[in-house]
Structure formats: structure tokens, C-alpha cells
């Protein structure tokens, strides 16, 4: 291995690592606020990339139908629960409609826009909007009534959601893989390294998103409310912060991050309905490096995972996944030795 190969691998690793970082951040975000270990994070990645691929071919993406079904289920649950709780039909109906409005609007917009062959960036925004709408609905349907359950039960629910979303991905996108066109075809030369426009976009988008997240949590009231929920749920509720709303907002952000990651990797890898899982899990390994608690830690962990993967692929391409996933054991060993003590009653 000479310097040029090493620098190419390093760039490759950092590029992938930047995407893993986004997913790792989403994982940490969801876990700290809701205690859900969100295994299906990667499914949003695949949904995002494949929705864009469908729009590219001028077809209505299957995610629209799925979104409508999910929104219908969520609205029905909202209706029934509110009705039972307050005994007031008009309030219950209003709550159900509120659940329905955004997904329905996005779906109608997409149905109209899909055959029009809009420019790539319009389709990209539309794809992100569709997949983002999934976030709160997934929380509403699968997790909301289990808010008080142990992290273990929530984890098993996550696995169920992962199964369902993967299968539905197969149903609505088919088994075929897609590769999206690049957003920016420009190429730059930096010594031995050939930097593509897409790589630049990945880095720029990741950094922008991380800065935005930081601003959101530091400067906005909503962000502070989420942080309060993360520290103490009961305390936050007593301060008037709804844990339902916090959960849904968190999942909205997770879905948004997932969809964006899907667009970022879409041009460099062929995405299948089940590709998201492995990508998401690598973000996961990064989050575990950070103990599921620290955002900067997840970022560093993700870059590390990306680099290990790139070099692993070069030295032993068949065992690249083995190397990346075995990595979690020494990482956990270090964490275990450092923490020393287990927490009581979760």
C-alpha cells in the first residue's frame, strides 16, 4: 500500500463515515429522548433513495401508498384513544384529522408531481418530505402506547418494526436495486485523490446537518424540551412537555436524517429494499462507540467505522462486514472496563 492508495481509502472511509455519522446521531437522538433503540433507522435510508429512484422513472413511489395506509392507521388509533379518553367525538375527530393532514397533503402533492418529471432537486425535496412524514406515524402506531415499557421491550418492538418495514419495502419497491443520478458531476483533483462533486455534497450536507442539530438543541425551546425529556421524562411532563409530542418530533427528525442519508448514498451505491439495514447498523456501531449518549462521540465513532470499513474492504474484501461488526466487541470491552458498574433498574 502506498500513500496514494491510503489517501483514496481514507477519503472513501470518511465519505461513508460522514453518512454513518448522520445515522449514528439519529440513533443517539432517538435513544436519549425515547429510550427506543431504533433498529429500523436504516429503513428510512432505503425508503429515501428508492422513493427518489421511483420519481426519477416518473412513477408514483410505493411509499405514497404505504404512507397513506400508515396515516390511516395512526388517525384511527388517535380517534379511538381520544374518544375513549375524553368521550368527546368532535375533539377526537379533530385529533385524527391533525394526524392525517400532513401525510395526506404530501401524498396528493406527490401523486400530482410524480408524472411531471420535475428537476432532480425538486424530486429530492419531495422524497425527503415523504419519508420524513413516516417518522411521527411510526412512533404513533408502534411506540406511543408503550412509552412506559422497559428499553428491552422497546428494542424487541424495534425489531418487529424493522421486519415489517423491510417486508413492506419489498412489497412497494420490488426486489430490484436502483442507483440514483449524481447531484453534482463536477470532479476535483487534490493530489492523488480525485474528489467528486457528490463527495463534496456528502461532507457539506453532513456538516450542515450537524450544525443545524446543534443549533436546534442549544438555541430553540423545542430542542431544549427534547433535552429535558431525555434527562428526566417525568420531570419534563410536569413542566408541560408532552412525551407523545417529544417522541413524534424525535422520530420526525430521525426519519428526516434517514431520508437525507438515503439521497446522499444513492448515487454511489445500488440501493435495494433491504440495503438500509446494514447501513443503519453501521451508524449503530458508531452510536454504541459513543455509549448511545454523546453526539460528538457518535461522529468520531462513525468516521472510525467508515475508515475501518474502507481499509477492511481493501485488505480482505470478503470479510469487510465481519471486521466492521466484530469491531463492536473490543469497543464494548473498553466501555465495560471503563464504566465498571451497571445501572440499577435501568
Amino acid at each position, binding site marked *: 500500500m502506498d500513500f496514494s492508495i491510503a489517501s483514496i481509502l481514507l477519503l472513501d472511509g470518511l465519505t461513508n463515515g460522514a453518512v454513518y455519522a448522520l445515522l449514528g446521531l439519529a440513533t443517539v437522538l432517538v435513544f436519549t429522548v425515547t429510550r427506543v433503540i431504533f433498529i429500523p433507522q436504516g429503513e428510512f435510508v432505503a425508503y429515501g433513495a428508492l422513493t427518489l429512484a421511483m420519481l426519477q422513472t416518473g412513477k408514483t413511489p410505493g411509499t405514497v401508498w404505504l404512507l397513506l395506509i400508515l396515516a390511516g392507521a395512526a388517525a384511527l388509533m388517535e380517534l379511538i384513544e381520544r374518544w375513549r379518553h375524553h368521550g368527546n367525538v368532535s375533539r377526537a375527530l379533530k385529533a385524527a384529522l391533525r394526524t392525517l393532514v400532513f401525510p395526506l397533503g404530501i401524498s396528493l402533492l406527490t401523486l400530482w408531481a410524480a408524472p411531471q418529471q420535475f428537476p432532480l432537486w425538486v424530486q429530492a425535496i419531495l422524497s425527503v418530505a415523504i419519508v420524513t412524514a413516516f417518522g411521527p406515524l411510526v412512533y404513533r402506531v408502534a411506540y406511543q402506547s408503550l412509552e412506559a415499557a422497559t428499553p428491552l421491550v422497546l428494542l*424487541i*418492538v424495534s*425489531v*418487529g418494526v424493522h421486519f415489517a*418495514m*423491510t*417486508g413492506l419495502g419489498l*412489497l412497494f419497491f420490488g426486489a430490484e436495486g436502483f442507483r440514483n443520478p449524481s447531484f453534482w458531476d463536477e470532479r476535483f483533483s487534490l493530489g492523488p485523490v480525485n474528489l467528486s462533486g457528490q463527495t463534496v455534497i456528502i461532507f457539506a450536507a453532513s456538516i450542515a446537518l450537524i450544525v443545524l442539530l446543534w443549533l436546534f438543541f442549544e438555541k430553540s425551546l423545542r430542542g431544549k424540551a427534547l433535552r429535558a425529556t431525555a434527562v428526566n421524562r417525568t420531570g419534563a411532563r410536569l413542566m408541560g412537555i408532552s412525551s407523545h409530542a417529544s417522541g413524534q418530533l424525535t422520530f420526525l427528525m430521525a426519519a428526516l436524517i434517514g431520508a437525507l442519508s438515503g439521497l446522499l448514498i444513492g448515487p454511489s451505491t445500488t440501493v435495494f429494499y433491504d440495503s438500509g439495514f446494514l447501513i443503519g447498523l453501521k451508524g449503530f456501531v458508531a452510536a454504541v462507540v459513543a455509549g448511545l449518549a454523546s453526539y460528538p462521540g457518535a461522529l468520531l465513532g462513525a468516521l472510525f467505522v467508515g475508515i475501518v470499513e474502507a481499509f477492511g474492504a481493501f485488505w480482505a474484501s470478503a470479510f469487510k462486514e465481519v471486521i466492521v461488526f466484530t469491531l463492536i466487541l473490543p469497543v464494548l470491552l473498553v466501555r*465495560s472496563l471503563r464504566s*465498571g458498574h451497571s445501572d440499577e433498574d435501568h
Partner: protein
Amino acid sequence: MHKKNLPILLLALAVPVIALLPLPDFWIAQLNYIGLYALVSLGLVLLTGIGGLTSFGQAAFVGIGAYTTAWLTLNTGMTPWLTLFVGLGLTTISALVVGMITLRMSGHYLPLATIAWGLALYYLMGNLDALGKYDGLLGIQSLSIGGIDIGQGRLFFVLCWAFLLAGAVSLIHLLDSRPGRAIRALKGGTQMAEAMGINTFRYKVTIFLIAALFASVAGWLLAHFQRTVNPSAFGLKMGIEYLFMAVVGGVGHVWGAIVGAGLVKLLEDYLQVALPALIGTSGSYEIIVFGVALVLVLKYLPDGLWSLVARLLPKAQRPVNWQHAASLPERDKPASGEPVLVVDRIRKQFGGLVAVNDISFEIAAGQIVGLIGPNGAGKSTTFNLVTGVLSKTSGSVRFRGEDISALPSRAIARKGMARTFQHVKMIPDMTVLENVALGAYTRGHSGVLSSMLRTNQAEEQRLLKEAQRQLERIGMGEYLHEQAGNLAMGPQRLMEIARALCCDPALLLLDEPAAGLRHKEKQALIAVLRQLQSEGLSILLVEHDMDLVMDVCDQLVVMEFGTLLTRGTPAEVQANPAVRAAYLGTEH
């Protein structure tokens, strides 16, 4: 004959009958798969349902068992009856590595590690030339004994279900034993179990290992039954399905594993044909149904399908077979007046907050000492420092002349210091008797293996006899077989005292024992405390009921804001103006 054993007996009779029935071979093969899957889920019942831990990597352990025997029998000609143990050995090593690394940390790291590790192992199996890459290994021999092929059809069915039943029976035996009670205590957090002298980390690793070994045996059987192995059967999808089986069937019940395995296998076969026909293209659409069903079960039937059946079954009461068992040996008690506990300037700081500020006091044998003070004075923290639940910032604690400052709470419990908790900590789905027997944990020795094989009965009877004796001693004799979760607050507290007494303590620490007790119950409690005192036991008491405190205590230690306010006899303390000020405020 014990009623609990009835389902086992029925199943044991049913297996040979089914083998003789003229069922089509297809159904026998189905039953074989169900038996294999159930064996894996059985391990998850112990791990998840009983122990409160979980693993998505059971399929990987099945893979280790299967690939080990496949490779060894094909390449070295070793007999399968030996490779079984090689597989178990390799499984033990990998389970210990994963378990030791993750189980010291909070509960969700184990499942995460098993996901990553299961994936890694899957890709390893799929890429190693020696293991035939993704094609796997073919032409594995069938199992045989003395030239008779027992690896196929009906004979294999009997073999496989014999393994399953043996596994189920050994688990039922284990759960109803000294180590079993310790395992059942894990789910509710480690603090209570550690205070009973139980090494919770070791038990967590143990149940993870047992679950892995069950999976490994299933893998060995599977390899010789299918006569081919390939990675797809050992991937993460299968790992998740095993957990799905256990959860759907009833993760808290041994029989839930069999119900779940049967249901999932039949449903999967049906859906794999029906759904693609409905949709028009092939693909594993059944995972949609499984995913949705898993969420629905956890929401609406968290105890699984077997709980519906279990509700209908008559509850068998434990037969009392320990009247003639010998009593447990008791430790030497300190002579009257000898110092039992010497607390010397212990201190606890949480960051800048000093919760306990250089507190010192002593307790002599046969003394009842009350630790009192307004709310937030640091009484419970002091308790936790003495019993080793929290680590001290500085200061030392000597118990019967021995420095115990640095010991963990389980080691302190073993030395004869027993405690109760401010918020009752118990195992709600065990009977009162079993909960109290947990207290006698340190006075027994039988391990996991002897419990599974039921060679622990003599000791078990002695432990239960002791539990009954302590319950009767504090007037709870009529509640022996009641489920602990059904008790009212007062009896629950008394049960905790009985459990602490089962440790055969020299010093008893009671954290608000009278909270929630009615007047009559308080009178009874006072009588019990007096009686214990007359037997030479020392007691440290945190309590808000001043009548009770003033009535029974010989000495009082008064704390306020983490600091020692005063010490003395009840009369002295009552006369102390500083104490009055702390409780009632000062007059202006």
C-alpha cells in the same frame, strides 16, 4: 405426584404415540423442525422471560453447533457423538466472551452486541472457503447408534423431542431451586439480589451460556437431520425469529417456547406460499406479518399465548415435604455488649453535594439503634453506605471487628448483615415462601447443574423449612403459598423482614419497616423486634413513626442535612432542643 409435572408426563407419553401413528412423513418432519426451534426458544425463555436479558444472536449459536459437527464429521471422520461436545465447547467460549464483555453494562448492550456478532458470524460462515462459503457443507452423515440410523423420520422425532423435554424439565427444575430463585431476582434490578449475597453478574453470564448451549445442541441436531448446512439458517433474520417464537408463545413460560415454535413454523410455511400467490411475485413477505404480529403481541398480550392457557390451568400448591428436614446451621452470634458495627466518619459526596457528612456511630450486640431525622437527612444514603450498595467517599465501617469498607454488598451480606428496603423489592410472581427462601441463598451451596438434575433436594428442603420458620416467627405463617405480588403493603414489608432473617444475620438493617402498617401490625412488629433483640440480634432502624422508635430503640442517632445532630437514649434525644428545632422549627 406433583401436579406441575403433569404436562411433562403427558408430553413424554405423547411423543412415542405420535411416532407410532400413521402420520404422513411431512408432518413428522414439521414436528422435527418445531422441536428444534423450540429447543432454541427454550433458552430464550430462560434468558429473556425469566432473566430479563435478551439476545438476537441465538441463530449464530445454532450455527456454531451445526458447522462444528458438519466440518469435523466431514473432514476428520469424528463421530457425531463426540463433535456434539466440541460444538458445546466452542459455543461456551464464544458465549463467555460476548457475555463477559457486555453483561456488566446496562441491559441493552447484550442484544446490540448479539446483533453485531450474529451478523459478523454470518458473513464469516458465508465467506470461508473451508466452510463452503454461501453454499455451505453437503453430505453430512445421519445420526446412528450401533448401526441403526436414528437421524431421520420417526426415530429422529423421538430423539429430538427427548432432547427438548429433557431441556424443558431441567429448566423447570432449575427455576424452582436456590440458583433459580437468584435468576428470577435478576429481572427486578440487581440491588436486592446483591443484598441477598447473590453475584448477579455471574448469573447473567450463566443464563446467557445456558441459552447458547441449548441453541448449540439444536444446531448439532439440525445439521445431522438436514444433512447439509448453509449460512442462511443462521443469519440475523432467524435470530429474530427465535425471539419472536418465544415472545409469541409466552416468554415467561417454559411451555410458551413450544407453543411459539409450533405456531411460528406452521404460520411461516403457510405464509411463504400464500402471500407470494396473493401478491403475484416471490419474496419473503411473511416478515411483514411477523413484524406487525410481534408489535401487537407486545402491546396487547405481553405474556404471550401460553398465558391464556396457563390462566385456565389449576394452580398447584407446593406440597410441604420439608417437615423432617434438618435445620440449617447458624453462625456464631456476638456475645452481648460486644461491638457489632462501628461506623467511623463515613462520608458521601455527589459532586458538590455532601449527602452524608462524616457520620459515626456504634451498635453493640443486642442493641436496637434508631437512625432518625427529617426527610432528606441522608438516612437511606447512610444505610446504603453501611451495606455497601453505594461506595463511600471516605470513612470506614467495621463489622464484628472486620473492616468491610471496601466490600460489595453481596460480600457484606455473606458476613451476616441483612437488610430490607425503603421501597419493597421482591419477585411478585413467586410465592411468599419462595421470596423468603431467597434470603437463605448464602446458606446453601447447590449450583445450577445439581438443580437441573434435581440432586439438590435435601438442601432445598432445609432452605424452605428455614423460610417457613422465619415467616411463622413474624406471624406470616398463613401466607406461605400466596403470590407475593398479591400481598398488601404491610405484609410485604413483613415478608422482607422474614427474608432478611433467613440470612441468619448478626445485624439487621430495617429501612422504614412500619411504613404502611396498621396499628395492630405495628404492635406485632414491635413484639417481633423485641423478640429478636432478646435472641441477641442487633438492629439498625430507619423509621418515621416516632412512637415506635421511642418505644423499641435503646439508642438514637439523629441526622439533619447529612450531618450528625445528636446521639443518645430516646429520653435524651426527646429533651434535646436541637432535635425539636430540626423537626418542628424554632420558636421566635
